[in-house]
């Protein structure tokens, strides 16, 4: 897998910041490019996938390790 174009560090941020930061970063991406979102807010576990679905982007993979959630998202 190619490296993400950008990384959104939303660790320590509370709702709704992870989603707002993700949306802002997505604006800078060209279609097909990917970004990695890192969050620790428990709401992000469902919020990032919900944002991805609502905006018609693609969640390539998600993982969780030591309280940090990581989402790899491709812009459509």
């Amino acid at each position, binding site marked *: 897998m190619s490296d993400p174009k950008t990384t959104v560090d939303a660790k*320590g*941020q*509370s*709702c*709704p*910041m992870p*989603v*707002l930061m*993700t*949306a*802002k970063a997505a*604006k800078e991406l060209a279609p097909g490019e990917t970004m990695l979102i890192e969050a620790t807010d428990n709401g992000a576990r469902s919020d990032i996938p919900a*944002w991805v679905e*609502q*905006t*018609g*982007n693609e969640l390539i993979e998600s993982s969780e390790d030591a309280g940090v959630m990581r989402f790899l998202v491709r812009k*459509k």
Partner: protein
Amino acid sequence: MTDNHVNTEPESMTIIAFSGDLDKLWPTMILSSTAAANGMDVTVFYTFWGLFPLVKDDVRITGYDAMTKMLAGMNAPGMKKAKLSKMEMGGMGHWMMRKVAKKNNLMPPEDLFEMAKDMGVHMWPCQMTMDLLGIEPDQMVDGLGDPVGAATALKKMANSNISLFI
């Protein structure tokens, strides 16, 4: 933001911000900014007590006579001065709530308001309430839409997927 939707109008949300209380402003700002992040067309219509938070923080008092000035005094114009709807305890309530929010990295409503504006959320002040309470356009924060009335707000709500009264 909306270019992800092919052949469809962006979904739309309208919030009637009726309350000027801190604990009501928070959900208004969280939902409006997040809806904009989701690619929705978002409008917030500020009416009655909801208008006071739009007054600049350095404007101490608004109104054109003793009674409207007194109303402004009781409602503390400016988003940073917003109080809690209950358990305000003479100023302790909102101070404690802001402390707790900061500790949990929850952005204050005035910051979320700025972000929402940057993301294209339409902020409409109610013309009638401005006249009623004597709030002048130059006393209000920058970046607001033109003042409108109930019919304009209703037209927007009629075309919205989500309409909320907060």
